[in-house]
């Protein structure tokens, strides 16, 4: 490292060793998991003519699950299109930036137009609750899945 560079670092208020530590720390940022939380809900016709719903949540990222909780999942039909409502709450006091996307499935379990729904960025302020909504791409959808991941900025 030249004297000129050392002088520039001092000018910025950084010591030589401080610079090395920052450099090493920055090389480790970005190694966090790309796994997230998945919520799934399906609507199926029951025996008595009533629609029965089943739902489950899979947590693949414990640190994200400590901050975000899926409070409720509901679905209804608008005309003949399945509409999903997912209520989330930020359990932390800080603002959370994350992303979500919906996937849609037919009754047979086949995914409709895989990978066409885009990841949507969302801001959730401290302790705030929010409802995310999605509408199925066509009337064949009878089941939805929501995927939630941390937001990576590159």
């Amino acid at each position: 490292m030249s004297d000129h560079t050392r002088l520039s670092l001092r000018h910025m208020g950084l010591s030589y060793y401080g610079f090395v530590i920052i450099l090493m720390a920055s090389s480790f940022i970005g190694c966090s998991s790309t796994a997230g939380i998945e919520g799934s809900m399906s609507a199926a016709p029951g025996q008595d003519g009533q629609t029965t719903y089943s739902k489950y949540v899979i947590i693949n990222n414990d640190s994200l699950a400590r901050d975000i909780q899926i409070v409720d999942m509901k679905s209804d039909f608008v005309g003949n299109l399945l509409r999903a409502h997912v209520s989330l709450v930020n359990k932390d006091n800080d603002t959370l930036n994350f992303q979500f996307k919906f996937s849609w499935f037919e009754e047979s379990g086949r995914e409709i137009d895989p990978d066409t729904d885009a990841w949507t960025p969302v801001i959730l302020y401290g302790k705030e609750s929010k409802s995310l909504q999605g509408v199925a791409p066509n009337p064949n959808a009878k089941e939805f899945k929501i995927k939630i991941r941390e937001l990576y900025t590159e």
Partner: protein
Amino acid sequence: MHGLKNFVCGLSIVIITGCATSVKYEDATKVETTTTDFGSTDLQQIVNKMVDSLLTFPPIVQVTNERRPVIFVNTIKNKTLEHIDTESITDSIRTKIVRSGKFRFVDLTKVDAVEKQFEFQSESGMVNKATAATFGQQIGAEYMLYGNFSSIVKKAEDVRDIYYKFTLNLMHLETGIIEWADEEEIRKTSERSLFGR
């Protein structure tokens, strides 16, 4: 002390040699934040919001339950300071609506090509008259889709703030009534950090 210097030199070499160009495929649906300019995530957000809103608006649900009305897409006026291909936005909106099976579309940008094909079928003598498309059978559009796209940009020394507003309207052509309208707002900021560009 010497050991540390060697370590720092070694680290620098590793960093410098790691600067080669590499190409990799990325997820086309991932959140993209390269700059505050209009990007793929903004386009996808606008399309999703507009199509979901249109297809679930109660009076529209009532109409589309009975039949599949025909729409034509007029242009989206780009009032932002950027060069944005608004046709790409309307193309994506149209594709998503068509795939929902709720509406049908006519494409006025292809009138010339269709006319040439009609002439070829009726006048060239090469096409069997029984299979040739007949004039005057096209379906007139019932609705028109049009909108505006505007932005407000603010800059301070190290901060750039941009606000986009996309408005879309669906007009019933015969009555001139706007049957549905919605807008999507997007706000992005960028801040130049100490170690950034």
